[in-house]
């Protein structure tokens, strides 16, 4: 059921919340990894925002408030999926970072060469909370403070978690792009053994 809003509230909602619908949807899609689920979460979050808007104090950061609603809706979806609770939602990535050993080689060329499916795979391998962090800070350009408020964590936790997430993301992209480039080199160096194109 739609809530009752005064004309002024509608105007305020239109001015303070509606401009952030694209971010709302991108966040849902990046966290859940599925366009249809993202549509459902965006719809559900929009209704929650409509219902809660009356209680939002003027001057409150609307997009951060909206992102918090989306984040919670995504987490609810995660919990309900196969009844797994919070397991894996905000894994700290300690084991992955330790497995990397030294700092990764932050070579920009490797990242620029990454294919979309390699980006997708590397992102999906991150725990959902850190996917959301990467989106808000590194893609949308939000400050750590604002992103941390939306994700309901301390800014320090966000900084360290995001650093680990970038390391893991970088290392995975380096591995997948590197493996592809090695495969391509081997294919060109062995002209007598053309790749199998599936012909019988």
């Amino acid at each position, binding site marked *: 059921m*739609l*809530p*009752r*809003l*005064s*004309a002024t*509230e*509608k*105007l305020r*909602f*239109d*001015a*303070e919340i*509606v*401009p952030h*619908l*694209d971010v*709302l*949807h*991108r966040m849902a*899609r*990046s966290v859940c990894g599925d366009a249809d689920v993202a*549509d459902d979460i*965006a*719809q559900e979050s*929009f*209704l929650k925002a*409509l219902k809660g808007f*009356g*209680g939002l104090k003027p001057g409150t950061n609307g997009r951060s408030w909206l992102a918090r609603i989306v984040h919670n809706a995504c987490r609810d979806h995660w919990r309900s999926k196969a009844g797994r609770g919070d397991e894996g939602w905000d894994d700290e990535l300690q084991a992955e970072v330790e497995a990397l050993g030294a*700092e*990764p080689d*932050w*070579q*920009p*060329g490797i*990242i*620029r060469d*990454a294919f*979309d499916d390699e*980006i*997708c795979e590397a*992102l999906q391998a991150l725990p959902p909370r850190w996917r959301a962090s*990467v*989106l808000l*800070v*590194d*893609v949308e350009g939000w*400050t*750590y403070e604002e992103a941390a408020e939306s994700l309901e964590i301390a800014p320090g936790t966000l*900084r*360290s978690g995001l*650093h680990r997430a*970038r390391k893991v*993301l*970088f290392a995975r*992209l380096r591995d997948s792009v590197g493996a592809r480039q090695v495969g391509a080199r081997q294919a060109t160096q062995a002209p007598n053994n053309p790749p199998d194109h599936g012909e019988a």
Partner: protein
Amino acid sequence: MNPDHRFCSLIHADPHGESWDSAVRAHAAVCPACTAFLRGVAALSLRLKAYPALNAPMPPSLRARLRAQLAACPEGPAAPPAVRRQAPAPRRAMRRALVPAALAATLVLGVMLGHNFDFGFSRAPAEVDRTIGMYIQDVTHDHYLIERIGRPLEVAITERGALSDWLSASLSFPFELPRTRAGFKLQGGRVWHTVGRLAAMAACETDGGGRVILFAVPAANLELRGAGSSIIGGTRVFSGNGWEREARVWIDGDLAMALVAMEGELPAAWAEMFLPAGL
């Protein structure tokens, strides 16, 4: 080179430099490890921004559905948040009894002021009562609000056809931006809500660096009164002031268009430049 590794860890935790002071900035410029790290993070950020799923807008059909839900919310004071009920004290009970009477009196006063004391009890639903004068008041007030918000545009589409398509997909009515004469550069637009209905809004930059905003709402049930008018280029153009700015309104097909300048008076020639060509 500054070998202080505390700076390295600060930079790694904050590659966008939000918390850097001059010492950290100086270190970032000379430390090879930090420079390589910052280049890597910048490349990662750029690559992610180029990844389609991370910069796609909301699907237009979903956006239109959400907007329709906002428009469909019944208007009226929102329900108060749930509070613990208390037994009313005698004075509070008296005040509570007076509230409906005060509301009724306010309503009657509002109706009288809104209709110049014209008691038309048999009149049609409220939307019929919208006039050009109210439209001018609303768009000038909207304009005042937009300036205060500071980021009025929802999309920065600068091509007329593309912005018309985007607005039409987001609104409940087809909308085509008027062709402007030279001197106005389209900046983008957004969906707005004015004079009690969904509205298209487009912003244009003028040659002098100013900005004009064009609103469009369905003209149905909008009475052509409440503002003075003159005929410009064969079209009746209404003009009026509100909120320290001037608006000009005209009817173009099924839509009522309103043009408002950023501040002060709107040069009469500007409205002419947005009027349907050939009139």
